[in-house]
């Protein structure tokens, strides 16, 4: 069945279809519709979940972590300041190995106060161990929630499904709704080896000295590395059932491409139309959209870049004192490769400044004129 829904409701339906059992969440623009709809669903009985209407995002995440450790499926959603307030608990969810799934609406960080989109909020969480999926449309948002549970529960790590403020969160789009039975088939109930259980008492997360901590971190890294093939497998399995496949990355017109535009989320989506335009003009340019950012699909990116002459990463985010974050990560991943192109890094669209097809064409044309990378940041659209 097709529905026209906003990105926020795509998250809510994703959680509902995944049969989330405990929800704990706190409102923040531009996320509120996610929890408003879930509140309705719980009140109506459409969704059989405990909804804890907590007093802060910090409590939302701790409640999810606690509930998850008892062996139930949990959901929350937030954005920007709310996500930042959870930061300590994000680390906690990873160390506690609780596969919480969270929606995050990418909004720029204050101050100054702002509610428009930028990816710095979620990318600032890149070192917490959360898996991160950047979505390009509402269909992908909904589908990714379901897949996120599947991967997260297999590797016992939490996952964040990410969408742009307003550009997706408040934009109604055509979405094919998965049927509940099929989702149930795809996503079996959540099972845990070690869980909080009075019949089998364990202490979780107790003091660990230098004699054990290192190994536990190693295990986490191995788990998130395992998730790399999992995201591909699960994305394909999803495709078989629902007709829409997903992977770590998505490519467009790269077969014969000499140049590559690399981006994520809705900027990558818009970039497609720019590619179409440039292809029409005879340019051999393709698109690489990074969908799964953590774990970082390094092998995939390396192999896709090996036959490219020039690559451009477009970031809607910034790590102050460094550069765009996708740019940094792509370069780091490919550094030791033999065959690799020069990579240019562009920052644009911070704080919700619109990024249109024309902007991307401009970026491409600008970079094509450059012989070498002069600076780690090429600014696009800022009124210097």
């Amino acid at each position: 069945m097709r529905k026209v829904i906003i990105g926020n409701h795509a998250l809510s339906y994703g959680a509902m279809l995944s049969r989330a059992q405990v929800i704990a969440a706190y409102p923040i623009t531009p996320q509120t519709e996610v929890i408003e709809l879930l509140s309705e669903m719980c009140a109506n009985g459409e969704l059989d979940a405990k909804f804890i209407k907590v007093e802060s995002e910090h409590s939302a995440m701790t409640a999810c972590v606690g509930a998850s450790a008892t062996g139930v499926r949990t959901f929350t959603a937030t954005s920007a300041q709310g996500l930042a307030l959870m930061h300590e608990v994000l680390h906690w969810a990873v160390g506690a190995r609780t596969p919480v799934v969270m929606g995050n609406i990418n909004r720029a960080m204050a101050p100054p106060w702002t509610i428009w989109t930028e990816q710095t909020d979620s990318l600032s969480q890149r070192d917490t161990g959360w898996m991160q999926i950047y979505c390009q449309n509402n269909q992908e948002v909904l589908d990714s929630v379901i897949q996120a549970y599947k991967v997260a529960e297999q590797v016992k790590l939490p996952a964040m499904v990410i969408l742009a403020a307003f550009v997706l969160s408040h934009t109604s789009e055509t979405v094919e709704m998965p049927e509940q039975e099929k989702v149930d088939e795809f996503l079996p109930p959540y099972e845990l080896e070690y869980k909080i259980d009075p019949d089998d008492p364990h202490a979780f997360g107790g003091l660990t000295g230098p004699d054990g901590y290192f190994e536990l971190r190693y295990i986490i890294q191995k788990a998130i590395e395992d998730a790399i093939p999992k995201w591909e497998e699960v994305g394909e399995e999803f495709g078989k059932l629902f007709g829409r496949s997903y992977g770590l990355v998505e490519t467009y017109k790269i077969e014969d491409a000499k140049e590559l535009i690399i981006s994520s989320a809705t900027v990558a989506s818009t970039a497609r139309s720019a590619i179409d335009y440039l292809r029409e003009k005879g340019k051999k340019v393709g698109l690489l959209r990074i969908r799964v950012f953590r774990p970082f699909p390094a092998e995939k990116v390396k192999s896709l870049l090996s036959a490219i002459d020039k690559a451009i990463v477009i970031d809607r985010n910034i790590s102050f004192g460094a550069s765009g974050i996708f740019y940094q990560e792509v370069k780091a991943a490919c550094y030791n490769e033999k065959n690799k192109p020069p990579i240019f890094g562009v920052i644009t669209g911070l704080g919700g400044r619109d990024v249109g097809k024309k902007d991307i064409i401009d970026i491409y044309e600008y970079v094509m004129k450059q012989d070498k990378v002069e600076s780690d940041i090429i600014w696009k659209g800022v009124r210097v």
Partner: protein
Amino acid sequence: MKLSIPEEEIMGHGHLACQGCGAALAMRYALKAFGRNTVMTFPACCWSVIDGPFPHSAVNVPLFHTCFEAAASTASGIKAGFDAQGKDVNVVAWAGDGGTYDIGIQALSGAAERNDDIIYVCYDNEAYMNTGVQRSGSTPYLSWTTTTPVKHPKQRPKKDIVSIMAAHRIPYLATASVAFPEDMITKFKKAKDIKGTRFLLVFSPCPPGWRANPENTIKLAKLAVLTRVFPLIEVENGRVWKLTKKVRTVKPVSEYLKLQGRFRHLSEDDVAVIQENTNKDWEILMDKVGEKD
């Protein structure tokens, strides 16, 4: 002969509490009252260390360590998890005074406002002990700590957490003391059988933090009650206040203070002020309890 408190020991030995630790005793009694169908969550506090290092543990009921500011919300989450599975489990947040009066009060206040079905126990040793004795909201007036040095001891009274929690109108709230285990266990059992948010405050001396001798732990806890520094009470629905331990012969606060190095710097005048404050607080309490001395 019958024992005055349950015989079964759920808490094990070998734990890492200091000699004479009141907090360790509090846990021992609590587990006797709650029994094994209990799940605990600890925020950062001495008990995160007392319980022992991975892969060992001394409490022998399921225990989920959580971050310092999140005892209550973690407990709410755990309870919701059990509810979602249709399991009836006694979920207990177990926190120090720092984790309760200060950094954890928001999560606690939130849970109480929602009346989440959890028990919140605060073992009160009146400072941040796990980090080496810094002032907390619970540190008493004029007490020394490492962040309130004797040249500038704490200037504010102990936060009145009991009245704060009573104002949340939770179904049950009680104070207890490790010197009165029978009273404590009665209250903990009662709390267990009530639905909604229950708050229990346990007075738990800390020998190193109070600069006291370990053998005086029970003595100090008893004196706190007998001097009316720490009254033993119950409050139902935030409205019905009861005194559960009437003190017949009241002792002067000086007897309590002089056993503790943290009060060594006090002048006689200081002690007189503390005595006066204690008297005043008692009067206010008696107003609520509806009793007259």
